[in-house]
């Protein structure tokens, strides 16, 4: 009697493991590492209940973020995916805007690529501190409107904002360039020590404390140590 199930025998073909499985596993491992780094940072920062923007605190949080990313190989796609997870996903239970922005900045600063492009228009939430400490040789392009403290502490890099920024744009930047297609908010260039901020639209207000560098509005120099500030 013929076995009625013989036709359903899968045959002699051995299922080969294709690279796709390995690639996905590796990618997931890296991404999990990135998520874990962020959660560790948040866990550390959340201890004080309220996250207040203070210079020492920002430096400390950024340092912790960098520490979490040490020796990790990733590229822009990971950063985009992480931003998407921050924006609306269940895998990240809480998003604190300050540390989140600093963590994304650390990701950008230590990525393999010299030019990173982030489409902020894809996200519902504003991202703050993007471009924080952007080093020389790196270019970060932000498509869409950024939050507060965009380009803060810029360190020789080039930040292009294809949209507007919030308050404190370029606060405490040391060197480098910030190009803003549209407008910036209050306290633009506060504690600025060097570099250039070029705004094609309106500047809502320039920072009161100004140590160096230049601010251009629609191509016209409006603030530098040599030029009396005009607003």
């Amino acid at each position: 009697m013929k076995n009625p199930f013989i036709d359903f025998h899968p045959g002699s073909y051995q299922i080969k493991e294709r690279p796709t499985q390995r690639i996905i596993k590796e990618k997931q491992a890296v991404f999990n590492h990135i998520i874990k780094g962020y959660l560790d940072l948040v866990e550390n920062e959340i201890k004080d209940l309220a996250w207040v923007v203070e210079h020492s605190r920002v430096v400390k949080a950024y340092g912790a973020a960098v520490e979490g990313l040490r020796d990790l190989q990733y590229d822009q796609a990971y950063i985009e995916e992480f931003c998407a997870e921050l924006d609306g996903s269940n895998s990240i239970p809480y998003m604190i805007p300050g540390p989140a922005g600093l963590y994304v900045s650390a990701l950008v600063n230590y990525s393999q690529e010299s030019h990173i492009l982030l489409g902020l228009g894809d996200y519902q939430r504003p991202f703050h501190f993007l471009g924080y400490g952007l080093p020389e040789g790196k270019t970060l392009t932000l498509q869409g409107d950024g939050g507060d403290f965009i380009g803060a502490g810029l360190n020789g890099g080039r930040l292009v904002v294809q949209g507007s920024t919030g308050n404190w744009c370029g606060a405490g930047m040391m060197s480098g360039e910030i190009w803003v297609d549209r407008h910036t908010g209050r306290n633009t260039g506060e504690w600025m020590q060097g570099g250039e901020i070029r705004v094609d639209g309106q500047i809502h207000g320039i920072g009161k404390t100004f140590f160096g560098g230049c601010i251009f509005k629609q191509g016209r120099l409006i603030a530098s140590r040599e030029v009396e500030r005009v607003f």
Partner: protein
Amino acid sequence: MPDLDDILKTVWPSVRSRHLFPELPAPACADGELRVGLDIKGKKISISRKFVKEMSVVLKPQEILEGLLDHAVSHYIYCPWNLTNHLKLYAAAKAVLEDKEMALRATDCFMDVVADTLCVSQKETPLPKIYRYLDRTVLDEAVHALFQRIWGIDLDVHAYEELSSRLSRIPYVDRSSWMKSIGRFSKLIQPLLEMEKDYGNLDTPSPMGSHGIQQYSTQEIEEGLKDLALDVASPADFEDIVHDFEDEISGATQPASQGLDSASAGSMDTSILYYMKLAENYALPIRKVPMESSGSTYPDHHISWEVGLPYQDIDPWTSFGKFMPGITQTWKRREGQVYGKEEGVPDCMVIIDSSGSMKDLRCDLSYAVLGAACACDTYLKNDARVAVYNFGDASAGGRQILTYTRNRREIYATLCRYFAGGTKFLVEDIDTLQTNRVPDIFMISDMQITNLEVLIQYFNTCKNRVTAVHIGNNEHVGTFCHTMELRKNVVIYGVENKEDIPRIVLGKIRQDLYKKTL
């Protein structure tokens, strides 16, 4: 070259066996330009002789046929699997690309990647050999680079290293993340799609064939739309997706399902289609009343005369003096019914409030329209007829009356009319819809009716079985419920929690109605 049909006959059983015997008929070779097409209407795969002939310069015909069949069957058993998946993938791609043509091509590519990757990972197939020798456009080259990377098979591609590296990290075989994956996939290939659009290549099908809606059978389209209506958050979302396939879908959708009379299939307002399909997901029970057939038939309503229908029922007065199929009108006869021992369902008069205090059915899910649609469906399925009285400020002309009919499209078109403005109904309008056979009344409103006392008085005197549904709660609802408490023929249901997710509230409607309906 040996006869392709003979080779196909020998290859097909082995392909079927490899894919664990999918329910597909034997494929056939077709002349013409078509390379491979899975005709899901007949679930029949057609393979282009021309394509096989061109390919047979570098590959054996048997390998070509096997590879093409594996590709086609993989689409059938893996991705897109059904029309709902197809439409949802398209919607996700379009959300990123914001262009119909580009979204269609991105969806095609994504489905090819998923289906072929699953096939290559799980089966022994000559499919990669075909990909190695296919003609490629810019986008195809990138997709081949992706295949080369994730399959680990040399496809003779030496470009798009970076792009393929990024694309390769998308979890194609994880069905649960398809919607997210196609978004990322579309975003990454967007520059190439724009380039293809500039070259005018988006109109030409991809080398392995494109995946149009026309490949699905009418039944699959009906089912797909039904599922889609349930999945989307609002009528606007439904419209966004369906609008792009309007021509294909309007040709395929048949409002005459389940033996209901219909107008000719043509383009349909997507809002009407949305409520029609959404209502199909809910079945309301209905209590029957003692009725029996009289045994004699009488002319009930008009339908278009077609060859084969009896001549004696033709109505010359409505046929414009013509005697032509499709133009000439004939009487549709129905068996008369009288009250007796057998149970039946009477006709139903649906009264729906579409004043300004009700939700605009085109922007948000209107519980009123959905509730009324479910009620209409139930009566129609039970062989009864439905009349609709849709009113806003009726005294100012804001009303639409549809007399008793079984034409589903006309009923939905009347239900989906939104008047806005004030809320006043005219008793004389309702009286015109009363018949000797005492129809049921289904009323749905937020009860903020200017002349509510007239309605209450009417319900107090009428003999119809009345199902009244109020949307939300307000003082008028309280008045209505209080005054109707003693009426045995009036049953009242409330739809609460307006701010709830529409789907959950829909379930409540059904549950509420299930408990008490008639």
